[in-house]
């Protein structure tokens, strides 16, 4: 069993559906397919839901219910680094 399949439980893009949000979603999907992770990407557009994460500048990226980036359109490599980091934390614990 590969641990990477289990440690990334959910991935969300927070944003109003603007072009930048869609670009972040695409970058995230590309990163996941490069890593061979099949966790689906959710796109949250509800303002209340977005506020629940404390985010005020969209788009934001949420991995395992943790906000890892906001207000920036990440590149594929950035997303890969973030996922690797979270996976690494899980393997240690």
């Amino acid at each position: 069993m590969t641990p990477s399949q289990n440690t990334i439980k959910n991935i969300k893009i927070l944003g109003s559906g603007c072009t930048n949000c869609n670009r972040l979603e695409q970058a995230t999907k590309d990163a996941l397919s490069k890593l061979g992770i099949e966790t689906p990407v959710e796109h949250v557009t509800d303002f209340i839901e977005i506020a629940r994460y404390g985010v005020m500048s969209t788009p934001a990226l949420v991995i395992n219910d943790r906000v890892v980036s906001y207000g920036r359109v990440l590149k594929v490599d950035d997303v890969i680094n973030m996922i690797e980091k979270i996976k690494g934390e899980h393997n240690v614990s």
Partner: protein
Amino acid sequence: MRLIWDFIQNQLLGMKWLNDLVGKLLTLMGLDISNRWIASLHFFVYDVIKIVILLCVLIFIISYIQSFFPPERTKRILSRFRGLGANILAALLGTVTPFCSCSSIPLFIGFSSAGLPLSVTFSFLISSPMVDLGSLVLLTTIFGVKTGVLYVFLGLVIAVIGGTIIEHARMENQLEDIVLNAPSFDIDTPELNFRDRLDYAKTQMLETLKKVFPYILVGVGIGALIHNWIPQDWVAGILGGRNPFGVVLATIIGIPMYGDIFGTIPIAEALLAKGALLGTVLAFMMAVTTLSLPSLIMLRKAIKPKLLALFIGICILGIILIGYLFNLLQPYLI
């Protein structure tokens, strides 16, 4: 000292060299730059290039600074202050926090749910589109450093006073449910290194250029038109010293327009050259950048009509007052 400053203002910021260069190129192409059409073309080419260069340099530097002040961090800083100090700080942070009207709802929710008083939120909302580092530098290039500094200072004053008035108007019941029902959460500011910030600044620069370029073309086009085709008497008559309502007129025309300071600058410059008063021109610019239909529609989702009307009223009144003040001070500024 005077010489160095003149050089910075005319050549570095005003780019007189570019004006001369474009003129020489047109002459080399066998065109007569004293011809009205060619003069319009000359102005258009020079101004578009100048504004694009200014925009790229300015937005890059500003975005780099802004990367230190995401709204999430601004919120946390503001929640530590109370009273007038909080208003002043909110107005100041409004100048360096990146903000577009598309995120006004999450921002409103975030600020309010963190317990920030309405006065602070509105000081931020007024100062954010009206004054920023970009407007300081741009106004300095065109109208001189005294005008640039005074504009920023007065913009901040409006933001602080406006927020205070809203506080005293007791409008807490004027928030939409969407704001009231939101829970509050603080999140960490992700750590960015030097390269991340440069990346951010580059992305912002390219995106702003893409977004604003059409407005620049339109703005410079109108500017060129005014510059070479509209009789001086018309402009001076309507927007100059002879019309006491010039400021009011300029403000009312400017409000529904949706534009960027980079697009309004060429219009302002051309109007001033044709005899419009400084304050009248600045009122027009402030009205265009501060209030626009798209941002008001967004804001309406978070606040009720009464508060929205008060917000609009304060902005209009502030802009008009600043306009008249600049008209009064014009002999000492330019």
